[in-house]
Structure formats: C-alpha cells, structure tokens
C-alpha cells in the first residue's frame, strides 16, 4: 500500500449519515499520484456519495479528507480553488445547457483561471479534438448523443488541468452502444498517467484500466486489491457474491 505522502486523496475514518441512514462507515482510502482506482459495489453501497465527498459536493459528519496534503477546505475561495483542481465527471453529464460545447469547456478557464478568450478557446478546441468531438464544438449539449455529451464533460474537467479526476458512474446513463466510446477516452487518460477515481459498474473496464479495485458494500470498504486478484480470488464472501451476480 502507498504511503500517505504519495497520496493525492486521503480519506480517514470518514462517516456520513443521511438522517438515520449510515451511508459511509469509517471509510479509509488513499489514492496515489498517477493511480487509477475503480470503486465497485452494489447500488446504494455509498460509492457515489464517497466520490462526492472528495470535492465536498457532499459534506461528511466525521473523519478527515485531505487532498494534495491539505485538509479539504469547508467554504469560500479555498474550497473553490480546491474544486478547480479536482475534476469531476457526472453520471448525468451536467453540461451547461445554454452554452455551446466549446463554451462549456472554456467557461472554467475563462472565469476561474482568468485566461484570455483566445487562450481558453484554443485549448478547449484542442481538448475537444482529443476526446474526438472537435467537429461538435459549436453545437449545444442537447444536439449531441449521450456519449458525445459525456466526452464533452470530460473535456470540461480536463480544461482545468486537474490533479485528479473523479468519475461518478460516467457510463450509467448511457445507451449501451455509447459506453465504449466514453470508456476509451477514460482509458486513454489513464495511459497518459492521469490520476483517477472511477465509480463504475463496468467490470471489464476495471479489469483493464484499474491499478486497484475498491469494493464497497453497505457504506463500508469491504475489500481492495489489484484487479487481477480482485476478479480471480476475491477474499470476502460479499465480493464473491457481487462478482457472481455482475459477471454472469
């Protein structure tokens, strides 16, 4: 296991309740620089919630979260700064529907990084080319397929030059034929050394791309292991049960 100083994300004894529901139980997790961690587990196991605590889209009730060595800021400019360095890709894409694809990608660099219009636009074009939708730059989100929208959302996250990107079930809202085009983009980012935490049900992707698989159930991290071990000899009965269901 990685030492703390090599970690971009560290969660220590993180607990969260939604009312009476204890959705995160003593979560300890670290993600190293350049590492690709896939979080798997049944629906309602707390995967997405955990992912969303890392840039404080969800608050926690106890425990500590550190990003890049610093405690997660709780508000204001510091929090906004941190969020600008932690990319996030959502299940529902969440592209800004009133802006063109290009403006979606350029908005952060323009307004947060205060780049010039030309600079932000040029880089946005380059990123859109990189995710394979350079020809869609002037269209609006609803004119694109789900797969294209999600690739635009990835470009939007990349535009901030994040130190790490959180993927919250990036392919769960996609039609089956569009899943691979998005996974391919994420896989390429992994090859390029991007640090990523990916919540997903795509076990084939996890097997190929992940450095480590984290298995969650009922708000706990039950097991974590490199994919070749997790998928062939899971230690816990819960993981075996999950894999038996999902790998049919």
């Amino acid at each position, binding site marked *: 296991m990685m030492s703390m100083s090599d970690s971009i994300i560290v969660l220590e004894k993180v607990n969260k309740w939604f009312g009476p529901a204890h959705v995160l139980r003593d979560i300890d997790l670290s993600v190293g620089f350049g590492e690709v961690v896939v979080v798997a587990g049944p629906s309602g196991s707390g995967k997405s919630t955990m992912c969303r605590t890392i*840039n404080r*889209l969800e608050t926690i009730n106890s425990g500590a979260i550190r990003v890049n060595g610093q405690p997660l800021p709780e508000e*204001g*400019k510091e929090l*906004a*700064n941190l*969020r*600008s*360095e*932690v*990319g*996030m890709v*959502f299940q*529902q*894409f*969440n*592209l*800004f*529907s*009133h802006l063109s694809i290009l403006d979606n990608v350029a*908005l*952060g660099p323009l*307004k*947060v990084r205060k780049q010039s219009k030309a600079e932000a636009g040029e880089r946005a074009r380059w990123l859109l080319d990189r995710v394979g939708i350079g020809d869609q730059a002037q269209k*609006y*989100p*609803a*004119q694109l397929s789900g797969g294209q929208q999600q690739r635009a*959302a990835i470009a*939007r*996250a990349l*535009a*901030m030059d994040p130190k790490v990107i959180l993927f919250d079930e990036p392919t769960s809202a996609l039609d089956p034929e569009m899943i691979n085009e998005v996974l391919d983009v994420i896989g390429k980012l992994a090859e390029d050394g991007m640090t990523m935490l990916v919540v997903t049900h795509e076990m084939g992707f996890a097997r190929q791309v992940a450095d480590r698989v984290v298995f969650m159930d009922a708000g706990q991290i039950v097991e974590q292991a490199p994919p070749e071990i997790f998928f062939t000899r899971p230690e816990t009965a819960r993981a075996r049960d999950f894999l038996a269901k999902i790998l049919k």
Partner: protein
Amino acid sequence: MTTANLFDQPGPKAARRITLFTIGAVVLIAIVVAYAVMELAARGQFDAARWSPLTNPKLILFLLQGLLNTLGAAAVSLVLALVMGIGLAIGRLSDVRFVRGPCVVIVELARAAPVLLSMLFLFLAFPLAFHIDLSAFWTVVLALTLYNGAAIAEIVRAGVLTLPSGQQEAAYAIGLRWWPTMRLVLLPQALRVMLPGLIGQLIVLIKDSALGFIVGYQELAAQAQSAALLFNNPLQTYVVVGLVFVLLNSALSWVSTYVSGRQVGADSRDQAITTVGLEPEAAAALRALDVERRMGR
C-alpha cells in the same frame, strides 16, 4: 386542444350528451345577449350621437395621450420591477440567512398588498415621510414596481429552482463560486425558461397601471373617464378603451406564445432534458390529432 390527453375520447353516448349541452348553452347565451342588446338599444346606447364623439380627432389624441402615459409608466415599472425581482430572487436563494430573511419579508409583503392601496399609501405617506411630493407618475411606477417586482422575484426563483441540481454542482465542480454560478449558469437558464411567465407579468402590470387614476395619473382609463364625462357616453368610451387594452395585451400574449414556441424550438435543440422542451412537440402532435378527429367526424 391539450384536453385530448386529459380525458377519454368521448363514446357515442357522451358525444350525444356533449352535443345536447352545447346546443343548450349556445341558445341560453344567445337569449341573454339578445335581451341585453334590446335593453341597451331601448335606452339609446347604440345611437350614433353616443358613438360619434369617439371619432373626434381631438378626443382620439386625448386618449392616445392616455395610452402613451399608460405605456410609459408600464415600461419604467417593468425595468425597475425586473431589477428588483432578479435582485430579490437572488437574495431569497442566498445561503446567508441575513440576506434571505429580509428578501422573504419584502417579497411576501409586496406580493400580498393590493396595488391600489400601495398607490394610495405611497401618495399619502411619501410627502409626510420624506418631504418629497411624489408625482402621480412616480407613485404609479413605484406601486407597480413593488408588486410586480415581488411577483417577478417569485417567477425567477421558481425558474432557478426548476433547473436540475446538476447544473449548480457542475459549476461548483469547475471551481465557480456561488455568485458566478448564479450569474453565468443558473440565471441565464432560468430567465429563458421563465420568459413566458415574465411576459404574463408584464400584461398584469399594464392592466394594473389603470389603477393610476386613483392618484390622478392621466393614463388611458383616467382619460377615458374624463372624456366620457364630457360627452356623456361612458359605456361607449369604455368599450373602445377596453378594446385597446385587450388588443395590446393579446399582442403581448401572442408574443409570449411565439417566444415560448421559439424557446421550445431552441430547447429541443439544446435542452431536451427539461419538460419544457417536450411541450411544443406534444402540443403539435395533439393539434394534429385534434384536426384528424374533427375531419373524421
């Protein structure tokens, strides 16, 4: 038109019943109208002498001056109400309780107070409180702004709240703070969604400007009243002036429908997720069904 999916298509019995009721209702209305027309005619309300003054160029000019005053007060109020409404909506959406609280109080008070009373109150209280004689124009404008600003605040707030929460989260996630998120992401979308509602509020505003007569503002209805006194033809004058209001507001209503139709056209391009984007297509489909049905009969 949209009832087609709210109710079952009528069966033969229901169809007969509907026909029967329709005929009955038409006959009843015809009787009432005929009676009213006869009575009005008997009292000389259709005499040329009562209608001819309305063709007098001087009178027309006099009424046009009133219309101009109505439109002037409405236009200035609209601008001020928009500013106030957007400001209050933002305040009421704020996380800060000391900002939100006063905004809630202002909106609820201003929305609940009758415009007529606000006008009177401003007219009487302003000179006493600030030693400034408020002109009739500004009394009308301020009262209209107060009420319509509060109403617009609620329209805008509803617009922001109907946006999917993912829009705000995505803005936060790229490092935008609360105000830039509001200004760059939420408000532009909310205002677009709410444009028909805002135009509806403009119609209310124009109609309410007629209350200005109470403080002596020479708007269209007040001018009509003066003219009617002069020529002793109040019914005739009010019919004409009422028609002007109806035409004006129908035109705005039409603009609202047109804008929302275009909006929806734009939405089906770029915002398919919202139900707003679905309505026009659904409406068009229903219209087509309706036409088919009527042709089949």
